[in-house]
């Protein structure tokens, strides 16, 4: 009897152990932002539906970028899904490091993904990452201060208007800065902003022969305009301000205008965090009068599968779930339409409830106004608006943005910074064989 019970127990344990060994588990590397954290909260529902467990590795954006780059280039196999952006996706897809997202189910409706997002996350027409949320950039402004200044914000302002409005709204005695913009060094911080500003003045990073263009008059005009406007109406120490610093200033009522990621609209209109939640208006990012390009970028955080994962089918299943219409509806039902991940699907912007969200239409207009294949006036050999989709760009742009930040901090002149930017870019591109 004792032996029989022991055998039964051993069999049961073996079955349990085998079952647990066969339990599928996906490891997902992701960034720490509101939408991604919200998704982690709903993962249990995915597990309930599919039986697939999910382990999250959440890291700060720059750490994540280094971590997943190391892993994918060495075929480390630590992750089944990676959260990557529009910069990495086409490069990694071209290198064969990502699994093409083909054969997705009909229910998923891949054609519903916003065309700008789909193009930006594809290489040679093949989608390599599914957008979880997308963003462009736009003007967020204080309606009360604009009114007090006796001005009216057009839907599509020019830089000249922005400068005039910024000066009119600036009130140094009450610590109100007419305009808050990114000046922090880093290709994804101040580097991104000055690049799109350059685009809106007709400047470009490279000509068709990959020659650096910082010695051209458009760059001098763009950088000088930016520096002069910020000196007149920007906050002190803006050379070290990035997204978070400006968000903090705007939420505390210390900025008349802020031009930055469309995703910030939900933060500045959230009454629990923002002191000016009910006084915010939106407009398209500006351009120089007469230049047919605006200072708006295009970005998406997207889910991709590294080549070599042992769980490709399960990973695809998760991506379909997380970037589906059904997921958007799930979030909307639980947390309201203002909190759904924006900028990824066309159908979201056709939903009546979402159209009532104050920043929805301007976000869509900003995304649609962005064209990564024609980012500036003159033709360019690259894809990307606030970046150039080549592996060398991150390193070069970080150095260049450091030179520009030194101008913002008053440590060197515009001419000196542009000369250094030209030299750095030329040297690095020649070394890379361009």
């Amino acid at each position: 009897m004792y032996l029989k019970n022991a055998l039964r127990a051993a069999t049961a344990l073996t079955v349990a152990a085998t079952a647990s060994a066969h339990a599928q588990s996906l490891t997902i590397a992701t960034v720490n932002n509101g939408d991604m954290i919200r998704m982690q909260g709903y993962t249990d529902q995915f597990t309930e539906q599919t039986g697939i467990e999910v382990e999250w590795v959440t890291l700060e954006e720059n750490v994540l970028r280094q971590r997943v780059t190391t892993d994918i280039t060495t075929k480390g196999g630590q992750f089944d899904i990676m959260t990557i952006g529009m910069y990495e996706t086409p490069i990694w897809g071209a290198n064969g490091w990502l699994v093409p997202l083909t054969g997705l189910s009909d229910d998923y409706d891949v054609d519903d993904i916003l065309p700008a997002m789909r193009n930006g996350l594809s290489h040679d027409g093949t989608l390599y990452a599914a957008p979880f949320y997308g963003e462009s950039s736009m003007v967020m402004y204080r309606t009360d201060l604009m009114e007090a200044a006796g001005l009216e914000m057009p839907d599509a302002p020019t830089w000249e208007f922005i400068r005039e409005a910024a000066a009119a709204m600036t009130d140094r005695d009450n610590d109100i800065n007419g305009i808050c913009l990114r000046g922090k060094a880093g290709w994804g911080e101040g580097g991104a902003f000055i690049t799109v500003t350059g685009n809106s003045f007709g400047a470009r990073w490279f000509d068709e022969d990959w020659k650096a263009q910082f010695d051209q008059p458009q760059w001098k005009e763009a950088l000088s305009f930016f520096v002069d406007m910020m000196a007149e109406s920007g906050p002190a120490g803006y050379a070290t301000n990035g997204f978070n610093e400006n968000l903090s200033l705007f939420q505390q009522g210390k900025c008349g205008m802020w031009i930055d990621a469309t995703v910030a609209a939900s933060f500045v209109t959230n009454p629990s965090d923002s002191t000016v939640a009910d006084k915010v208006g939106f407009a398209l990012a500006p351009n120089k009068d007469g230049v047919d390009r605006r200072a708006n970028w295009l970005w998406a955080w997207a889910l991709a599968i590294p080549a070599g994962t042992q769980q490709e089918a399960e990973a695809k299943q998760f991506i379909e779930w997380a970037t589906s219409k059904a997921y958007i509806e799930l979030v909307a039902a639980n947390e309201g339409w203002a909190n759904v991940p924006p900028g990824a699907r066309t159908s979201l912007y056709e939903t009546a409830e979402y159209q009532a969200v104050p920043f929805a239409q301007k976000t869509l207009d900003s995304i649609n106004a962005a064209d990564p294949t024609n980012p500036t006036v003159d033709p360019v050999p690259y894809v990307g608006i606030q970046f150039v989709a080549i592996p060398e760009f991150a390193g070069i742009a970080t150095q260049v943005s450091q030179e520009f930040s030194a101008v913002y901090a008053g440590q060197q002149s515009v001419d000196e910074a542009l000369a250094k930017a030209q030299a750095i870019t030329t040297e690095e591109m020649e070394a890379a064989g361009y």
Partner: protein
Amino acid sequence: MARAVTANRKMINTAIAWAVGLLIFFPILWTILTSFKTEAQAIASPPIFLGFDWTLENYSIVQERSDYMRFLWNSVIIAGGSTLLGIIIAVPAAWSMAFVPSKRTKDILLWMLSTKMLPAVGVLYPIYLLFINLGLLDSRFGLVMVIMLINLPIIVWMLYTYFREIPGEILEAARMDGATLKEEILYVLTPMAVPGIASTVLLNFILAWNEAFWTLNLTAVDAAPLTAFIASYSSPEGLFFAKLSAASTMAIAPILILGWFSQKQLVRGLTFGAVK
């Protein structure tokens, strides 16, 4: 002859010492205070020092979102394991360098220290590839080995300095009394160097606890320690300073408590041999 110190002078010195101490501690104090604020209060300008509505909400969110105990346990194993292993290797090495030096001992010591001058990122890819081939990625054992090797030069240097303060004649006397090498190190040298060994252990435990390059790059889920726990609350797009502060406070609390209770040994060890 001891220098006479007036009461006034003593008071000024004490005040200066407290001021310097508070200045050094202020960032930690600010982190702790911020962890009890709302996100809006955390970014308020001018900053609010004490007059805010204290809340435990951030701790509850952090606790709900992350498995703190798993990260803590990994930190304890990685920091404790690497320190222990380092001491086991470093004691005989430092003994040999302190009591039976060769003409190359100084060069070896300098060479060991020079490895600390190499930026870690310079060897990230070789180590990562090595870890892939050995199946050590995201393993506590792999982390223990790497962090032990990183801190080993410091451990050897510190122990070497302490051992040099112990008269060689005492060890010689033990040898004459018939002590073996093992007995000499274990029963004669080690008890005399306890303050030095204790401070070495503490300092290296703290260094290993705070190590954030290798622990972030070589782990994912299973072996991720508290440094990964903090990193998961840092964000360049979104203001989560109060939650980040709560996560930081939870991460530094164990080491802060350990440091508080062992400060006597730490100070004694660090000043060991300073006054003759």
